[in-house]
């Protein structure tokens, strides 16, 4: 019913192409053509280097999708509250279809990022760098889309329904703040284990790195000699967070109320 219109809406969203792709591609460009120029990267480390950039950019890109989804849910809250009571669309069906479309959207967008990564590295280093485990990467794209969509939905509805949200801007950017915060931290610092595995962004980033070079990533991504992470814990963390966020999203969507906006003209 709404899988296709939702997917179309995400893929036609200008903010997604601006923040989710262009902004990220800019940083990828910097990583390949600027940051890599000051020192030579040994050829045997190039694939790992590409993997770290791919992972970071995927995280930032999907967190930008979370921003757009927040706005989308907020501005459609009156419509959703109406439809759940007056049409054959149930909250569960709405969630499952939009969740699936968010997942598929990020498979498409993530694949574009993956290709651009390969192209940039080919231009600079004449090696077309792609993930060793492409299927694994694609599954991660899908799961990332689900996680960030579920988080965006939960946050916006909680703040709108129960905390009287009037301004969507700060709430919508929480996903981007988290994405960039945890994303960059994992590059340069080793977080305490409970924080490292206790959030869903750092394990996702590690798994993206793993999908790229099929080696267990180190806890400090720029330091190949730092302690390797526990892959099983990372996978378990993602699994648990996916379930928690899905359940939270279903519960909040079921109880959605209209927002107090009188005008919501979007460009």
């Amino acid at each position: 019913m709404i899988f296709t219109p939702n997917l179309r809406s995400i893929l036609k969203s200008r903010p997604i192409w601006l923040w989710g792709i262009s902004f990220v591609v800019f940083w990828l460009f910097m990583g390949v053509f600027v940051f890599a120029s000051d020192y030579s990267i040994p050829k045997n480390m190039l694939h790992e280097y590409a993997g770290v950039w791919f992972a970071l950019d995927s995280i930032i890109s999907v967190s930008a999708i979370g921003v757009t989804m927040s706005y989308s849910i907020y501005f459609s809250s009156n419509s959703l509250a109406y439809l759940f009571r007056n049409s054959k669309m149930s909250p569960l069906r709405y969630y499952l279809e939009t969740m699936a479309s968010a997942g598929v959207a990020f498979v498409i967008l993530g694949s574009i990022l993956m290709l651009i990564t390969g192209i940039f590295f080919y231009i600079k280093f004449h090696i077309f760098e792609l993930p060793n485990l492409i299927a694994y990467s694609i599954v991660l794209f899908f799961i990332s889309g689900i996680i960030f969509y579920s988080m965006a939905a939960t946050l916006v509805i909680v703040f709108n329904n129960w905390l009287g949200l009037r301004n969507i801007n700060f709430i919508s950017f929480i996903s981007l703040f988290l994405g960039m915060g945890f994303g960059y931290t994992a590059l340069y610092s080793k977080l305490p284990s409970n924080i490292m595995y206790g959030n869903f962004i750092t394990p996702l980033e590690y798994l993206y790195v793993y999908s790229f070079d099929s080696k267990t990533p180190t806890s400090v991504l720029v330091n190949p000699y730092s302690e390797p992470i526990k892959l099983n814990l990372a996978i378990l963390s993602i699994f648990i967070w996916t379930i928690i966020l899905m359940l939270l999203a279903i519960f909040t969507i079921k109880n959605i109320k209209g927002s107090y906006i009188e005008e919501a003209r979007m460009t």
Partner: protein
Amino acid sequence: MIRVENLTVSKSRKKNQYILSNLSINFEDPKNVIIGPNGSGKTTLLKAILGIIKYNGEIKCYFEGKKCNFATNLDLVYRLYNDSVNNISKLYINMIGGDYNQFKNIIETFKMTRILDTKIYKLSTGETKIFGLAMAYSLNADYILIDEPTENLDPSRRELAERLIEQFVSKRYLLVTHDLKLLKKLRPNRFFIMISGKIYGGFDPSIFDRLFISREGKGNYIAEIQGGFSKYYLSLDSGDFPLSSFSSIEEILGGE
């Protein structure tokens, strides 16, 4: 029938300030009109019945033994995506049931086919009104909730809108307006007066021309209405001013 019991809607984040306070009313007849000034809570009542705002109390609607569903001209319920009017209307008709050809015919009657390819968020206020009316009339719903159907329309389209609403003769509706002339044209089963979150009636529209409004309660009055600062009394066949001499409720209240 739509049954409203002890409905309370508070203003956002403000304690002890209510738009509607312990409102109880039954809309037993199929066609009902509520007349009231701006800010009386008419639209809030419709939103509560639609289920899109938080409220305390109970609202029940049953038709032929099952729970009702509603269609409305309030455009804010049709903003699921920022997509074209054409795609949005087809999507909603698919989800709720309805007649897309009827929707398109209404848009063509208003000479507004240009809006079919326009994104919903880019419609002007008048275009949004027509879109809302067309959706309300085209969806399969047990009840139609109509909010100020002729506001923001130019005179020729206002007339078209009134004629369209007159075709609601086969539908069940609850229509809110401040336009007393529209009430006279529609001839519903019952009409109500709503002021400052309180509702009075339902009155038989056939007595509309016999109704008088007064500042003092002389003799037998059929309703005592609390305006902003003053009380008004509604009576039959005698009083200070005939209700039909006013074009809107705001005129009666004089800016209260």
